[in-house]
């Protein structure tokens, strides 16, 4: 009973390799849906965009045939003042929104991670903005920014201002106004990431720190913040990429104005490729956009090394 005959052993090993082969094909089968989706919706369109960026393709076919134009689209984009304005606007938006939004979401996450009554109620309240469609958020906030009697104008009036500010209509205020709205609308996503990160930090560290006499700020600075290192990298990169995709808010609220001061890369791309029907030009811009965002992600990754 205890000793096995050679035949049985052989049969066993044969069965094993068969198992392996079977599991490999099963794995491939499981990979198939994701692969099809990735290839179909990401890789093929991107390869097409690269090809189209070297042509003068129009959206709707017309009597003038499409031709290859070499690097003409790229040269044109790099000398297009509106493209550079959109680029500066997008970078400005990211520069304002990323620290602001990360700060707020960390603050709220720390607050929601501590012990207080009705904690779960507040936790579910905090993700409400994320569940509201962006278009609805925009409608509500456009009422806040309304002139002369929106919420924000009434607020500054309460603080003694004698006139109103045209928040969305002035080149100086339009982008900060969009930043505030966007940060409010999407911060719960980063907050959830931070909340998960916070819960990964072992509570023993805080106990030890308390025994050593560390106050709340010291605990945050020496335990919480270093403990969130990997979360920080993830949040930073996703928020920056998200910021570069700014479109809906500016398209509905300001239409890129005043004088192009809130026009962004994605909005300009859609305008050129769809509204102006210049598919070739828009595709070249899309390729440049991917390069910019990719470079940024890699740069951030190198800057704050993952451990």
């Amino acid at each position, binding site marked *: 009973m205890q000793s096995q005959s050679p035949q049985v052993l052989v049969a066993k090993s044969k069965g094993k390799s068969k198992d392996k082969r079977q599991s490999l094909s099963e794995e491939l089968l499981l990979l198939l849906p994701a692969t099809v989706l990735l290839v179909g919706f990401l890789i093929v369109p991107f390869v097409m965009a690269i090809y189209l960026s070297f042509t003068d393709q129009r*959206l709707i*076919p*017309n*009597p003038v045939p499409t031709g290859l134009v070499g690097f003409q689209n790229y040269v044109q984009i790099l000398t297009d003042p509106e493209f550079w304005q959109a680029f500066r606007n997008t970078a400005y938006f990211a520069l304002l929104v990323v620290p602001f939004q990360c700060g707020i979401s960390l603050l709220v996450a720390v607050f929601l991670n501590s012990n207080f009554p009705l904690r779960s109620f507040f936790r579910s309240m905090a993700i409400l903005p994320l569940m509201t469609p962006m278009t609805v958020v925009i409608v509500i906030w456009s009422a806040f920014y309304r002139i002369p009697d929106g919420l924000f104008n009434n607020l500054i009036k309460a603080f003694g201002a004698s006139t109103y500010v045209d928040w*969305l209509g002035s*080149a100086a205020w339009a982008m900060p106004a969009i930043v505030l709205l966007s940060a409010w609308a999407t911060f719960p996503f980063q907050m959830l990431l931070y909340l998960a990160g916070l819960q990964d930090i072992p509570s023993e560290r805080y106990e030890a720190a308390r025994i050593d006499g560390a106050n709340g700020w010291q605990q945050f600075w020496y335990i919480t913040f270093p403990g969130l290192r990997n979360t920080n990298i993830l949040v930073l990169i996703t928020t920056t990429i998200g910021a570069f995709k700014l479109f809906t808010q500016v398209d509905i609220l300001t239409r890129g*104005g005043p*004088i192009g001061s809130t026009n962004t890369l994605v909005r300009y791309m859609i305008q050129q490729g769809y509204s102006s*029907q210049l598919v070739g030009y828009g595709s070249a811009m899309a390729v440049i956009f991917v390069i910019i965002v990719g470079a940024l992600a890699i740069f951030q990754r190198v800057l704050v090394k993952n451990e």
Partner: protein
Amino acid sequence: MRRTLTLTAALAATLALSLAQAKDITVWVIDGTSERPYFLQLEKAFNAANASKGITAKVTPIPNINDALKAGFLSKKLPDVIMLDGPNMANYVWSGQLTPLNSYLDKAMLSDLLPAIRAQGTYSPDGKMYSVSPYDSTVLLWGNKKYLKAAGVRIPKNVNDAWTLTEFQDALSKLSKVKGVTWPLDLKLNYSGEWLSFGFAPLLQSCGADLINRKTWQATGTLNSPASVKILTTLQDWKNKKWIVPQSGGDNRFYGDKTAALAWVGNWMWRDHKAGLKDDLVLIPAPKFCGNKQVSPNGGWSWAIPASSSNKADAGTFINFAMSTRQVAQYADITGYIPARKSATPLSKVYGKGGEGELMAEQAATIAVVRPVYPAYPVISKSFGDAVLNILNGANVKSELDKAAAAIDKDIAANKGYPPFGK
């Protein structure tokens, strides 16, 4: 048993036959609050009149119809009849998307159309008609009588005694001091898209300039001519004096909270204005922006048949029905637009002799200038619209117009002059 079988077979055959004969025409129309009741009525009336012939129509309002049409052209999934914005017709025809309507349309109806509506639907390279609008539109000043009286300004009654530019500016200046008025003039800057060229091109045109030279089809030298610069500088000056409702001011300053005294907008606001101001509402003709000349824009959404339709004859029947005198008069009364057929005007309560909208019909018949019927129109409209917005936001007038003219000419060059135009 055998009998029943034959009977069933015969029944099934008749059913199949009748199904094959019943022709469903699909129709895409614009999705507007004031238009919806009209389209509901149109569908019902058409189906009642044509049921015996086995033709039925399904009318669907489409939100963002411009985008839907573009997508439809690309995927070759378009209905039998569409509504398109009049000035986009030339672009669609040029790229081969539309069918000429001449052979399908009723001759008597065509000769009854307002000349400017015929001009809007006619494509000059082949002289054929590709779209036909049931209505005409116009832009004029709407006033709040209470404020105008308080300011003590003259209220013009017909096209001939319209305000001159000096009078208009004087009125704005006086109105800005009237109690309750925050901004004397609402230019509907909250609108986007076609409004900006529709509503503001008349300023250039009444000063001898235009969006594009209609003989050479070049924008540089016409769009950015000194006359354009001068009148748009005047407009910018009004903005600086805080005489114009800002872009974020919203839609209802004139008829809602009544903080604006005048509104420069088209007849589609008829219902809202009437409901908001009641007897205080007064219609004021388009001012004489330069010397003695005044211009109003015209035209609008039109019926057309996509080249891809496999049911063109029935589509033609539908359009003829929608363009009948009775239907055109109904369109006018339900939506507030001006009838596109001369014979429909007397039937309309609003636009007939002594009707409240008589002035609008007068403008449409006397001072309307059709938008350039040219394939580059979408680019022309967008470039000029952007320039207007930027100018009102304080950008340099000359350089904005230069930029717009250059963008238009660049597009024309990129399309090799839109052959067969310019040949």
